[in-house]
C-alpha cells in the first residue's frame, strides 16, 4: 500500500491510454498510468494493425487524416521503428449496392482532400496480383492508408511517458475512484495504492463501462468478440489491406516488416460480451475466405488464432469527452478502430484536458450525444 500524487491518472495501458498519457506528459503533466495486467493485454495486443482514412463520418475522416500524418512521423517522435507502411486499403465491391455506398463515401472523403477513388476490376487485379475477381465490380482504393505494428507503437508511447518523467505501473487494477463534491479526488487500486489527482482518464477500452461506474458515470461501451489469425512469414506478395464486406467476407493484410499475413472478420450475428474463446468455426471459415479471395495463399501456414474484443458504442463512433464529474474524462469505445485513432485522439484528448479545447473539435464524440450519426464503413 502506498500513496502518491499525479497531475493526471490514466486508466488502461492500451494504445489509447499510452498515446493520451504520452501527449499529457509531453505537455508537462506528471502522468501515472495504471494498467490492470500488462500493456497491450486488452484489444490493442489483439488487433491487426490496419490504418485508414476511408470512413463516412466527417469527424472520423478528419481525425484519421491527422493520425496518418502522425504515424508518418512517429518513428522520429518516439525513437522506435513502428513499421509504418503506406500499402493502401482496397475495399472490394461485389454487388451494386456496395459499389453505390462506396461511391457516396468517396464523395464525402474527397471533400477533406483524401486521395481515394473507385477503381475497376482490372485495376484491382493489378494492385493485387492473384486476386480472385469473380463477381467483382471494382473497389474503393486509397493508397495513403496503411499499417503499423501495434506493439511497437504502444510500447513506444509508454517509454515516452517515462522519458517525460511519468510512471507506467503494471498489475495495478483500479478498483475505486473517489469523487467529492462532483470532482475526482483520487484513484485506488486493488493493492490499496492511492493516487491523488485532479484528472482521471478512463481509457479502459472494452471495460470502459465498468471503469465509468466507479465514478458514477454511464459509459455505453459494449464488447463483442472478434477473432483473428496470423500466418508464417512469406515473401512479400500483397501490398494493401484487402477488405471484403460480403456477409462471408474478411479483411487481411501482409505485414510489411515481417511478411506475416494477419486478418479477421466480423461474425454474423455478432458474439456479444467479454469472450476470448477461439472458436472452431473461425479457424476453418477464415482460411476458406482468405483462400477464396487470394488462392495463392493455400500453402501458407497458420501460426496462431486468437480472439479479442471490439468495444462498440451505440453509433460505432468513439467517445472522447469530459463527463458530469469534474476532472473525469473518457476516451474509449473506439468501435474496432482504436489503434489507428490512437495518435490523433491521444493528442487531441490531451489538448482537451489541458487547454479545455482541441485543435480538431471533438464535440461530435461527446458522451451526451444523440447517437444518431452511425459510421457506415465499420
Amino acid at each position, binding site marked *: 500500500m502506498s500513496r502518491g500524487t499525479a497531475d493526471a491518472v490514466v486508466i488502461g495501458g492500451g494504445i489509447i491510454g499510452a498515446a493520451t498519457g504520452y501527449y499529457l506528459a509531453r505537455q508537462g503533466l506528471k502522468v501515472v498510468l495504471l494498467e490492470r495486467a500488462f500493456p497491450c493485454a486488452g484489444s490493442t495486443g489483439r488487433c491487426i494493425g490496419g490504418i485508414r482514412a476511408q470512413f463516412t463520418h466527417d469527424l472520423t475522416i478528419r481525425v484519421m487524416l491527422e493520425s496518418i500524418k502522425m504515424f508518418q512521423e512517429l518513428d522520429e517522435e518516439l525513437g522506435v521503428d513502428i513499421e509504418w507502411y503506406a500499402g493502401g486499403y482496397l475495399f472490394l465491391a461485389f454487388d451494386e449496392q456496395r459499389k453505390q455506398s462506396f461511391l457516396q463515401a468517396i464523395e464525402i472523403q474527397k471533400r477533406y482532400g483524401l486521395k481515394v477513388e473507385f477503381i475497376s476490376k482490372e485495376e484491382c487485379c493489378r494492385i493485387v496480383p492473384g486476386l480472385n475477381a469473380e463477381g467483382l465490380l471494382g473497389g474503393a482504393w486509397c493508397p495513403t492508408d496503411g499499417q503499423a505494428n501495434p506493439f511497437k507503437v504502444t510500447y513506444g508511447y509508454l517509454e515516452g511517458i517515462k522519458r517525460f518523467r511519468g510512471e507506467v505501473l503494471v498489475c495495478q487494477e483500479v478498483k475505486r475512484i473517489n469523487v467529492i463534491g462532483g470532482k475526482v479526488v483520487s484513484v485506488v487500486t486493488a493493492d490499496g495504492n492511492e493516487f491523488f489527482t485532479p484528472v482521471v482518464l478512463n481509457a479502459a477500452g472494452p471495460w470502459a463501462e465498468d471503469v465509468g461506474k466507479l465514478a458514477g458515470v454511464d459509459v455505453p461501451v459494449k464488447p463483442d468478440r472478434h477473432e483473428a489469425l496470423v500466418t508464417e512469414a512469406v515473401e512479400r506478395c500483397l501490398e494493401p489491406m484487402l477488405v471484403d464486406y460480403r456477409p462471408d467476407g474478411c479483411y487481411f493484410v501482409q505485414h510489411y516488416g515481417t511478411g506475416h499475413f494477419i486478418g479477421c472478420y466480423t461474425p454474423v450475428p455478432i458474439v456479444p460480451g467479454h469472450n476470448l474463446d477461439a472458436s472452431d468455426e473461425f*479457424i476453418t471459415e477464415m*482460411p476458406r475466405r482468405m483462400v477464396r479471395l487470394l488462392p495463392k495463399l493455400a500453402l501458407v501456414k497458420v501460426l496462431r488464432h486468437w480472439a479479442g474484443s471490439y468495444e462498440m458504442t451505440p453509433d460505432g463512433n468513439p467517445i472522447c469527452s469530459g463527463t458530469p464529474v469534474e476532472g473525469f474524462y473518457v476516451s474509449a469505445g473506439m468501435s474496432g478502430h482504436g489503434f489507428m485513432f490512437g495518435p490523433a485522439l491521444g493528442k487531441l484528448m490531451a489538448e482537451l484536458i489541458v487547454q479545455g479545447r482541441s485543435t480538431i473539435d471533438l464535440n461530435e464524440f461527446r458522451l451526451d450525444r444523440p447517437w444518431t450519426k452511425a459510421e457506415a464503413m465499420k
Partner: protein
Amino acid sequence: MRKKKGYRKAKTDNVIVCRCEEITEAEIRAVIRAGYHSLEEIKRILRTGMGHCGGRGCLKVIARLIEEETEIPVSSQKFPTSRPPLKPLPLGLLAGYKNEQGNR
C-alpha cells in the same frame, strides 16, 4: 537458476534463445533490465514465442532468465496462453477441412 559448484558459467550472451525470431540471450536480458519482468511483455517487445514453435522452445529459458535477473521464481511466473493450432497448418488445408465437414 541454481549454479553447481565447480562449474564455470559459459559465456552465453550470443546464444540464440528464440530460434524462430532469432533473439539472443543478451537481447532478452537487456529487455528484462529495462523493467519488463513478465513473459507476456517480453513476448510483445521481442516476439519471443510468436514464431513457428509457439514458444515451446524458448519460454522456459526466458522464464529462467527472468528468475536470474529479478529473483521472481519461475514457479510464480505466468506463461502466455497457448494458441491453436498446436502445429502450423496450411490455410488451404484448413479451408478444405471446412468444405468437407460442412458448417460445423
